[in-house]
């Protein structure tokens, strides 16, 4: 069987019997969204990677308890969030949201660069003002590019709740950017 085309349930059945290839395929399939979610809890990428690794290991150990009549993705993300919450409690220094400071500077004309810097600054300021869940929904949907229903599964929320958080986040950010523009013009 070509594992890339296998369903999650087929991979789970093989991983239950210790197939490294099947487990590796599951890992590759969910690594990116897993890191995105983990990073919402962890302050650094290294910490987020550790969370992801721990979550995959716990999922592998718990495969016998996985209900095959249900989809794998929400089950795995529930494990990931639990792992992340437990770690966040253990490390009180962790915040639920980390704003990227290491955005690469792009080369281009100065005006465009200034605009980008301003935009980035505005988003950063706006993000800081948002409640954590709005920040998370906005970042996962609007920055990382995951779609709403996907993010709902990743965060264990309904699609409508994600939509609401996103809508409110956008409104707040729009206001923040508007204020920033007004300050510059003044």
């Amino acid at each position, binding site marked *: 069987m070509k594992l890339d085309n296998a369903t999650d349930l087929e991979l789970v059945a093989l*991983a239950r019997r210790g197939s490294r290839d099947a*487990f590796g395929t599951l890992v590759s399939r969910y690594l990116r969204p897993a890191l995105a979610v983990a990073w919402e809890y962890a302050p650094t990428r290294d910490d987020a990677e550790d969370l992801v690794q721990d979550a995959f*290991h716990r999922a592998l150990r718990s495969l016998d308890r996985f209900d095959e009549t249900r989809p794998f993705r929400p089950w795995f993300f529930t494990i990931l969030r639990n792992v992340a919450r437990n770690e966040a409690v253990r490390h009180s220094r962790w915040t639920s949201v980390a704003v990227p400071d290491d955005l690469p500077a792009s080369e281009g004309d100065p005006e465009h660069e200034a605009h980008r810097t301003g935009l*980035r600054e505005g988003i950063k300021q706006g993000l800081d003002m948002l409640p954590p869940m709005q920040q998370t929904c906005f970042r996962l949907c609007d920055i990382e590019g995951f779609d709403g229903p996907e993010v709902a599964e990743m965060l264990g929320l309904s699609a409508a709740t994600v939509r609401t958080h996103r809508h409110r986040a956008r409104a707040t950010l729009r206001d923040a950017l508007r204020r920033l523009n007004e300050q510059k013009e003044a």
Partner: protein
Amino acid sequence: MNHIPERSQFESRLPDEQAYWDKLAARVSDSAEPILRERRDADAWWQPLAKWSPAIGVAAAAAALLVVLTGPPAQAQPAQVSFEELLSPDDPVSRALVGAAEIADLSTMLLVESGGEQ
């Protein structure tokens, strides 16, 4: 979920390079090897049985057939034994039942059992 989402107008903090993801996936899989090995070991004990399961199945069916064919013939249904033959001749109830000219009624039998012979 195995696709890379389209980039928005903002910049993602997730790495772009495929090499990064491959390396992280390898790290997660490598470190899971002890758990995977446990699973393989747990799965291994019945593998020899599974390998021979068709032969074992055929043998079991043949044995069952053999038992059916060579087993003792079905016992003939014992002839109906009359109620009187089952009773001991020395038993007072038996005597009251069998020896009486007329069919003893229940009260008679109760009296016999309690020692009041007719």
